[in-house]
């Protein structure tokens, strides 16, 4: 069953490459996404058997990340129906195929029970996201792709070295990189090699996850890639990297080194919050703004896991919320770019007045990103803060609140300027887009609106009420890492 | 504090007991009411300047204030009709408390100076309940000095209008009564009574404080002629 889930997107990817016109390609993409989500949700009912002699398996953590990926991928594919209306040339065919490859490799990452295979999965996702970023062939996008490629490959090389150290640490007794075997014999792993491997894996996967010192590729890649791709990148890819770090965390927890692991992770989290604040305050480009807010939220996840206890439960919940929030944010930027044709925030004015629906969604994105109550992000950040307070990490509490407040200031300054109308009468109706020559602004097409609405509803539900089945999956997943409510 | 008390006791009370006791005799140089020499000569107190080098002979009599303009004209046959007291109702009101508002409508300020002397300890106007106040609204009457120049005319009328009924008007000094020295200048008006009804005319240029005091007391019925 897992193998089918893994290879099915590859097959349709190849098929799509052959198809002639764009319309059927979109439908095929949508069909695959639907099928993928159907399988994933069936896993919620009955957990699938381990297959491919132990290489592929699904535990609570994997299921969480997988379902997030499938939901987001379904929304993005639905969004693409509207996004690519009318254009169809060779680059679209490559785009759709690599998109499907991207889905299958991400599924590989979530399913793999073997560190080596996990690493291959991450390497594959990186490589096949290169053409996705490079879709619009401008100077900046090529530069972004080059940076993305070099930094990520360096990261993965370090992760590879980390895996080898892990193998070396268990060379005399475990002799294998299967997660389950490692967890059983975690105690006997040789300590120095384990520590070396944890550090290298943390740095390697941290680069992929966009944590602070290694985050430099993220703003460029996400702001240059087309919006649906950046939604996928920040929604799913970062989560896969986060999952790989959680696997390392599992091993550490089993080996009794939680303190060693969590202190580093909290440091990384705090640094990413600090860096995110520095670049969000006074940011000019609204896509880069949301990219830096992904760095910020990854920092929050890191802090959550590092704090342990309810913090881990909060971090996992925050991972889900953050994925959907980033989905909303980047799809809205896609709409904005389609209407205002400019990435500079100063040229986008009066969105609420001229495009009410996009305006409301932009506000919803802003509220969700800055963790305002009705949205789920507030609850998860509250849990993380609770863990910090309960654990008497008063320094973490101080920096956490300070940076979140400053980041809120930065984002509010830009987004509110975009939504509020502009009174200069020089340009037609108030707030009418500056450089749009079209007299009557185009009506927002339905297919670009519905996915965002669905995501907003999801995040709102998570803000008010956590369904029991999600609650015990989160509890089980947190249990794996030694946390839980 | 003690020094003030010492000088006070040394000085003693300076107020002259005028209406009861006789007024202090004025120096020789004082030019009081003129004496009509010839048979048919008539002198209009409102117009003359009381200057020493004119051929008029002045007596030492200070009481010259009259209620009507024509009484100011002295002639052989008519006895000088001095100011009469107000009617019964007005006296009941102003008998013990009369607040006056001084309006200087042009002129050389000599009348104002002598009017001011009344507040000094010697004459002490306040013992009769008469007081000069700042606002016409608090006042019962206005004392006009100077030939009501064209600029001051409107202000005078405004002040007159601002005073609540029942009110008095006192014309002080030659200029107010008949335009005085300035009577031939186009700016000056020829006498206050041409503008507003006047209740008391006090001739003199400037009228001696005693004349003014005497006029006021007659008006209030404190002195009966």
């Amino acid at each position: 069953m897992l193998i089918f889930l893994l290879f099915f997107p590859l097959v349709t990817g190849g098929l799509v490459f052959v198809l002639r016109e764009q319309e059927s390609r979109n439908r095929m993409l949508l069909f695959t996404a639907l099928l993928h989500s159907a399988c994933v949700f069936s896993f919620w009912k009955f957990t699938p058997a381990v297959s491919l002699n132990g290489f592929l398996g699904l535990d609570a953590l994997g299921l969480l990340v997988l379902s997030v990926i499938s939901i987001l991928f379904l929304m993005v594919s639905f969004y693409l129906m509207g996004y690519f209306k009318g254009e169809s040339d060779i680059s679209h065919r490559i785009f759709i195929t690599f998109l499907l490859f991207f889905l299958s490799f991400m599924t590989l990452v979530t399913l793999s029970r073997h560190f080596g295979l996990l690493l291959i999965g991450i390497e594959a996702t990186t490589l096949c996201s290169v053409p996705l970023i490079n879709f619009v062939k401008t100077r900046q996008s090529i530069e972004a792709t080059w940076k993305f490629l070099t930094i990520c490959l360096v990261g993965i090389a370090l992760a590879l070295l980390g895996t080898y150290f892990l193998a070396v640490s268990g060379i005399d007794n475990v002799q294998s990189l299967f997660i389950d075997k490692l967890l059983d014999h975690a105690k006997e792993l040789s300590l120095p090699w384990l520590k070396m491997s944890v550090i290298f894996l943390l740095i390697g996967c941290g680069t992929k996850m966009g944590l602070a010192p290694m985050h430099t590729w993220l703003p460029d890649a996400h702001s240059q890639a087309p919006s649906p791709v950046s939604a996928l990148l920040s929604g799913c890819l970062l989560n896969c990297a986060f999952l790989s770090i959680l696997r390392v965390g599992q091993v550490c927890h089993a080996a009794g080194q939680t303190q060693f692991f969590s202190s580093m992770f909290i440091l990384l989290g705090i640094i990413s919050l600090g860096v995110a604040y520095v670049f969000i305050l006074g940011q000019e480009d609204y896509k880069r703004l949301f990219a830096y807010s992904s760095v910020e939220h990854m920092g929050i996840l890191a802090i959550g896991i590092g704090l342990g206890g309810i913090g881990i439960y909060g971090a996992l919940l925050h991972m889900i919320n953050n994925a959907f929030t980033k989905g909303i944010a980047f799809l809205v930027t896609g709409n904005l770019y389609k209407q205002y044709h400019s990435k500079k925030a100063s040229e986008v004015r009066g969105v609420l007045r001229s495009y009410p629906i996009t305006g409301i969604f932009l506000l919803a994105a802003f509220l969700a990103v800055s963790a305002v109550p009705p949205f789920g992000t507030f609850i998860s950040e509250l849990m993380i803060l609770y863990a910090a307070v309960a654990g008497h990490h008063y320094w973490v509490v101080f920096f956490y609140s300070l940076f979140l407040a400053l980041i809120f200031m930065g984002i509010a300054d830009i987004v509110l300027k975009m939504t509020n109308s502009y009174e200069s009468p020089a340009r037609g109706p108030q707030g009418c887009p500056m450089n749009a020559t079209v007299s009557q602004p185009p009506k927002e097409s339905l297919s670009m609106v519905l996915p965002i609405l669905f995501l907003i509803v999801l995040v709102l539900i998570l803000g008010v009420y956590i369904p029991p089945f999600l609650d015990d999956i989160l509890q089980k997943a947190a249990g794996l890492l030694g946390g839980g409510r | 504090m003690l020094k003030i008390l010492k000088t006070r006791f040394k000085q003693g009370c300076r107020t002259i007991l005028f209406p009861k006791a006789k007024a202090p005799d004025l120096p020789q140089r004082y030019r009081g009411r003129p004496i009509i020499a010839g048979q048919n000569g008539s002198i209009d107190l409102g117009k003359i300047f009381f200057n020493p080098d004119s051929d008029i002979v002045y007596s030492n009599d200070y009481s010259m204030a009259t209620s009507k303009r024509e009484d100011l004209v002295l002639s052989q046959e008519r006895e000088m009709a001095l100011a009469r007291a107000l009617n019964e109702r007005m006296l009941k009101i102003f008998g013990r408390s009369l607040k006056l508002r001084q309006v200087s409508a042009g002129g050389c300020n000599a009348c104002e100076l002598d009017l001011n002397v009344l507040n000094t300890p010697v004459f002490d106007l306040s013992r009769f309940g008469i007081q000069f106040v700042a606002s016409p609204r608090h006042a019962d009457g206005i004392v006009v000095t100077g030939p009501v120049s064209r600029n001051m005319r409107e202000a005078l009328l405004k002040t007159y209008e601002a005073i609540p009924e029942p009110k008095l008007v006192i014309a002080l000094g030659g200029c107010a009564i008949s335009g005085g020295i300035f009577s031939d200048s186009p700016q000056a008006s020829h006498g206050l009574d041409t503008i507003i009804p006047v209740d008391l005319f006090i001739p003199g240029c400037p009228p001696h404080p005693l004349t003014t005091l005497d006029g006021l007391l007659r008006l209030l019925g404190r002195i009966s002629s």
Partner: protein
Amino acid sequence: MALLLISLSILIISSLLILLFCRSKEISACVFLWSLVAACGFGLWSALSVLCQKAMSLPLTGVDFRVHGTIPLGEFYIGIDALSAFFLLLFFILSLAAGIYGYGYLRDYTGQRNTGVHFALYHLLIIVITLVLVAKNAVLFLVAWEIMTFVSYFLITFYNESESVRKAGYLYLISTHVGVFCLLVMFLIMGAQAGSMNFDQMTATQFPLALAALLFMLAFVGFGIKAGFIPFHIWLPHAHPAAPTHISALLSGVVVKLGIYGLMRVMAIVKDFPLWCGVLLLIMAAISGVGGVLYALGQHEIKKLLAYHSIENIGIITLGLGIGMIGHAYHQETVAFIGYAGALLHTFNHAVFKGLLFLSAGSVIHCTHTGDMDHMGGLFKLLPWTGHLFLIGSLSICGLPLFNGFISEWLVYRALLEGVFHLDVFGIIFSSLAIVALALVGGLAALCFTKAFGVIFLGSNKSSEGHQGKEGRLSNIDIKEGDLMLRGPMILLAAICLWGGLFPANMVYFAFQGTQAITGLQIPFVLKEAVINPLLSATRVLSFGGVIFSVLALVRDFLVLHYPVRLTETWSCGYVKLSHRMQYTASSFARPILKIFRSALVFRVEGKISKEYFPAWTSLKSSVKDVSESLLFRPLFYVIKKFSRKLKWIQSGHTQTYILYVFLFLVILLVWKLI
């Protein structure tokens, strides 16, 4: 409790209905009006029923409504106790008045903004504030608190075409959101200490003194930003002029009071604080009171003036709280009871008369199309209703005897004086300083409101285009009084002011009910008598004054028979060309007092005085700079922005440097962790 739920459901349904019909103005407006009246009616009924229980039959916490496990980490647990009932009372009265006023105010609004959405947001704000007041669970409290912040942001920026409104909205959002983080940390510390996020368990646990001090500081900063204590008040003077009138009335009447409610709730939970907390609160209250009113004196714009006055009244309220805490710390329960009761009653009174003042100021601005006081004057004849209501409002805000302001200020004085009697030397010093501060605040408030009322309504109209007709009527400005919708709520509020002033007994009784909820102790009946009886005899003195007044009036009428009243021009030393520009304006009226406090207020008078013989055109402007805003927060924001701009070189664009970061961090981690 059932009644409250009914009113909440009415509000929810009606807000959805309004959103449905938001395209057509009439339907949405009338749905808004009727649902508002119904909901507020039920709300008031429920609040009064809790407040009026004679015997303490019901448990102190009143009836609760609980839905388990809804909000993660917390739960949807609401209940009315005397304290929240008291605040619900003032909240529903004011929201009813502001809502009706808003309905009338926006009826002839021709701008592009959609009034339907505005009304729906108004309902949402009412729902959320009710939730804040009745929340018995910390998470629910925080969720409602944040939603309120954002909903009120959207209401404030209704006219967001103009730049200043947007800036004000942004400043409001930032400062309140920063405040929320302190609240977050505070509630979480309380929750961690108590083991559960429900207020009941928190009240049961015993907090060590050191932790109580930390909680107090967090509560002080978090709620202080919302309430508007002096150093944190910078958003208030910007938000009030920006918001439409009924919103700024609601803002200053209720939203600011939630800060006070929060502070009281924390006091109810963490029962005993160290002494220095009470003293700090007292000092900050005095500073806020005096500072607020001094800044108000320097303002030229009505709504800014009223905004600063909210800060002053918050200062008075916290004086009561401060002396209450000090009394509690000294275990002098009488001082604590009267202090809290005074604070509670002044909260109610301030909500009522501040709402009245804002609504009347709003209708003045609505008619004269300008907020600047120096362009008004002589409006008493043109707007008689608004004039009289503004007069009642200003009389009660200055705490003058006939109105409700006096009763609550009297209670605070009584608490301070009791403090002077019962506390030790240290306590006496602080309570007597508080008395002096309160007296100064009362005096300055009287000065400020004579200025406001005199400059706006009395004298002759100072705006250049209105020339002074002979009989004082302004012929060419089409000023007409608002219709019943505008006047109705104002009359309701004025009636409450008067009723509160003349029959204070039951309002004081409600305040004592609220105090019992704060302290959790039963107030002895003799103390209630010892407070209510003096007030009754005070009203006897006022009635005696009324008798004398009527006697004097009769004498006057009898005497006027002789002479009919005569009208002439104002007496101005006979100056012929009497022009309306010779009157005392707002700045000249306040100049003597501002000169005395000029160093504290950065009071500046700019303008060029022409030196030549023949006077040419010249201008003079006096201004007061808000010290805490211009010297503390603006530079702080500037430094943060500059600091973050300096750090931008991290993202320098070169791939090589990026890889160097990765490598260096790897080395750092290796060194840190392995050696």
